[in-house]
């Protein structure tokens, strides 16, 4: 059963990839082990911690609760695609750096993939909105305060742009 292979043709951060995978391969493991994109972290593998959050057709989702085969024909975005080709950080990455919004960094990729999508939908967020949007991403280091500051700072630097 496990050797039944499925063709996956997907676009990750704008690059096409085609691979044959087992049906039971998780999307998180596909990104990390098959494509080598280890920026996406794996914590709990049951949807609780948020470390594995990526964007699937533009929406933040848990990559540990999707199968790699489900990426076939869909667009994936991971933390590796956020900075510009010249290394310019995304405004939220820069803001996290400026406000000490990370310590160990384990949660950071998931938070970025959640909150960049949030900022695109809510260019002028209130603090309660930010905290609500962050509620699905656990951080054991920062106490969240500086992450909330970073999102506020990024929103103001982006000036309501999407």
């Amino acid at each position, binding site marked *: *059963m496990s050797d*039944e292979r499925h063709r996956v043709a997907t676009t990750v951060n704008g690059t096409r990839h085609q691979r044959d995978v087992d*049906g039971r391969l998780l999307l998180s493991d596909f990104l990390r082990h098959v494509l080598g994109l280890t920026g996406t972290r794996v914590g709990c*593998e049951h949807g609780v911690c948020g470390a594995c*959050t990526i964007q*699937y057709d533009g929406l933040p*989702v848990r990559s*540990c*609760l999707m199968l790699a085969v489900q990426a076939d024909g869909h667009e994936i975005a991971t933390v590796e695609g956020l900075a510009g080709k010249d290394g310019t950080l995304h405004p939220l990455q820069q803001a996290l750096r400026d406000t000490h919004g990370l310590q160990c960094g384990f949660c950071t990729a998931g938070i970025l993939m*959640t909150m960049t999508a949030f900022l695109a939908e809510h260019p002028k967020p209130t603090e309660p909105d930010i905290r609500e949007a962050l509620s699905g991403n656990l951080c054991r280091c920062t106490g969240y305060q500086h992450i909330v500051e970073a999102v506020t700072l990024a929103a103001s630097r982006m000036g309501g742009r999407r």
Partner: protein
Amino acid sequence: MKPAPFRYVAAYSLDHALALKAEHGDEARFLAGGQSLLAAMNFRLAQPAFLIDINPLRDLDYVRRGGSVVRIGALTRYRTLQRDPVVANHQALLAEALPHVAHPQIRNRGTLAGNLAHADPASELPAVVLAVGGKLCARSVKGERWIAVKDFFTGPLSTALDAEEMLAEIELPDLPARTGVCFLEVARRRGDYAMIGVAATLTVDAGGTCVAARLTYCNAGGTPVSASAAAKALVGRRISEKAIGEAAAAAMREIEPPGNVHASSDFQRHLAGVLTRRALAKAHTRAMSAA
């Protein structure tokens, strides 16, 4: 951990999905949002031999207005329901409960049908569908049948669906004029399952006398629980602080929450009393302003 091996098939039509389910029965599971199923498979709490992925079936992803009901498809995600004006305008109880279900990332994938088929008594949504008196369409290769929500949930994680059936549509009826609703819960952390939650509906006549009421609870037993005697005792009364207090006390006596690691049975019962009082008061205010 990782899922045990299984066969995966992406369904290309509803008939295809139903034919596979008829062929493989209990060995096969539909994969909807995967937000309960894949978590359980990662921990090997579930080891289905066969997964029928219904995500390609986009025509099952809808919210429709028909007569005085709202129809919701097998693949309609929480995210869609939270943004749909038909839900906001006609199913206020569902709209009020949805933000309590998990986190935005989970709501981008999870479906109402998957939630109901999963039948977790701790979930908000079975209690909501019970409170509004929804009907559930079960479909198989043999045809379809409609199941009243009061007959749908048969125990923890079990439903009246048989091994060949898909929960194909959920039909939620409009509530009568001058009805107010309210959903409230208490959870340890935002997005967690509630320690207890209450869904209240209250209908008044032009003079402010209660003509119908429903009180249902999540995480208060093996299925969503209805405090029907407490709700019925409100009918015929003018809604006052006293009437609400008595209904809440009666509901506390009527339900038998089992208790769990987060809350003892007594604490759950206490919370149920407090939340019932608040929910009825809010539902009453809303019913009066809807008049």
